[in-house]
């Protein structure tokens, strides 16, 4: 398959997932609602002066984002299996890596949609200007979502079809994405404190490094994940 054909196939796979979600929303409403509820519950418990909250909000935001994001990851492959379409998907003359990249893209878009709702929610509830430096914050968001969606897609595919799938997914996912969570939380904290010097760049490098590593690992390993 040429690069153009692969790109087209990737696009049709992503298009199919987005179309299904638009026609019969199964994932996004639950994920968005959970995100807002988490933001509310977390902010209710944090009763600190504003200057102390600033150093905490970054970590709390990413905690809420990742927990709510697991809803999207959990349904990522369950939706295919529910309709009996998972096998059909594997029968197409499409490389497993392409399927992985398409699923990762769909999950990435879901996480971005979650952030679009979560960011205003946290700004409203915590009174901390998360978007004071929009460019660097956007970079953190995109890299964190990329790393999370890549490793989450692999883990979701692995645990799909297992007993206690939902519980296993979270148990497996959180330690594995901890470099991404750490990187995103620390980079956000430093950004909110206005410290975008050497340490901030180191956290960004960690975040970017793991995001790229997880995407590469997922693409290479996915054929073994989907094998039966």
């Amino acid at each position: 398959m040429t690069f153009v054909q692969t790109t087209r196939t990737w696009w049709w796979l992503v298009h199919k997932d987005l179309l299904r979600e638009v026609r019969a929303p199964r994932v996004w409403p639950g994920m968005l609602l959970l995100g807002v509820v988490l933001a509310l519950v977390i902010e209710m418990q944090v009763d600190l002066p504003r200057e102390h909250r600033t150093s905490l909000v970054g970590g709390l935001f990413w905690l809420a984002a990742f927990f709510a994001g697991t809803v999207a990851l959990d349904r990522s492959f369950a939706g295919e299996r529910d309709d009996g379409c998972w096998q059909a998907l594997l029968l197409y003359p499409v490389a497993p890596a392409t399927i992985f990249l398409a699923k990762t893209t769909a999950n990435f878009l879901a996480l971005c949609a979650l952030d679009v709702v979560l960011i205003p929610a946290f700004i409203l509830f915590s009174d901390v200007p998360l978007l004071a430096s929009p460019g660097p914050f956007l970079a953190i968001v995109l890299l964190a979502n990329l790393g999370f969606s890549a490793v989450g897609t692999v883990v979701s595919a692995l645990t799909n079809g297992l007993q206690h799938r939902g519980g296993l997914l979270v148990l497996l996912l959180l330690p594995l994405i901890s470099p991404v969570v750490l990187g995103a939380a620390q980079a956000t904290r430093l950004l909110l404190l206005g410290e975008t010097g050497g340490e901030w760049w180191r956290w960004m490098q960690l975040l970017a490094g793991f995001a790229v590593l997880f995407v590469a690992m997922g693409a290479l390993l996915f054929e073994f994940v989907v094998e039966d």
Partner: protein
Amino acid sequence: MLTSVDMPLEARALSRLRNGRMILDQVDLTMACGQIVALLGANGCGKTTLLHCLAGCLRPTAGQVLWFGQSPQRRPASHRLVGLAAHEACLYSELSAAENLLFAARMYGVDEPQRRVEQLLCDTQLASHSARPAGRLSKGMRQRLSLARALVHAPPIVLLDEPFTGLDVASREWLEGWLDQQRDQGRAVCFTSHDEEQSLRFADQRFELCDGRVLPLPAPRPSPSSVRFDTAGQVVKARSA
């Protein structure tokens, strides 16, 4: 004499182990072009497992599956040679009949996918339901749509898992006519069933799966004329029996 390259589908000493149990045990099977093969057996004997191994969905524990002499393992491109209509319809409920076929056509890289979809919808008498979501189609319509999806890329090998289950009389008659049509077009068709009478009506070869082994049953009719396909699934020569 037909060699492996001439045989569209061949299973050699195919074994599949699951949870310590040998579901398939040294199965040998060959199919020629323009032939309908019926695979019979009781519920739970492993027919679906065998079909999925032949389709390349399941990796055999031992042995090989060959499509025109080549193994499909780790070669996604070769999946163009096979169309599978599984027991589940494998259709996205939210997408319409036409959208399901269009998606499959795009995945298989079919030229002019829109035209191909329209043709298939006519062939399967679903043209008037093309805009209806697949989740709202009747069982018979979903079955026909699933068959259309299996054929969207015109594969030389077609595998059907219990295609007659749950169909009314009219749908069954339509399906039998459709199977005859696939045979006449030179395809190698294999379907599973637990209804022996049905297989006697139009199968060219019959096998029974029992205790993981495939046993040939008496052929109900002589071998038909066949066409030959090359490894890309294109017709190269027709010859009569």
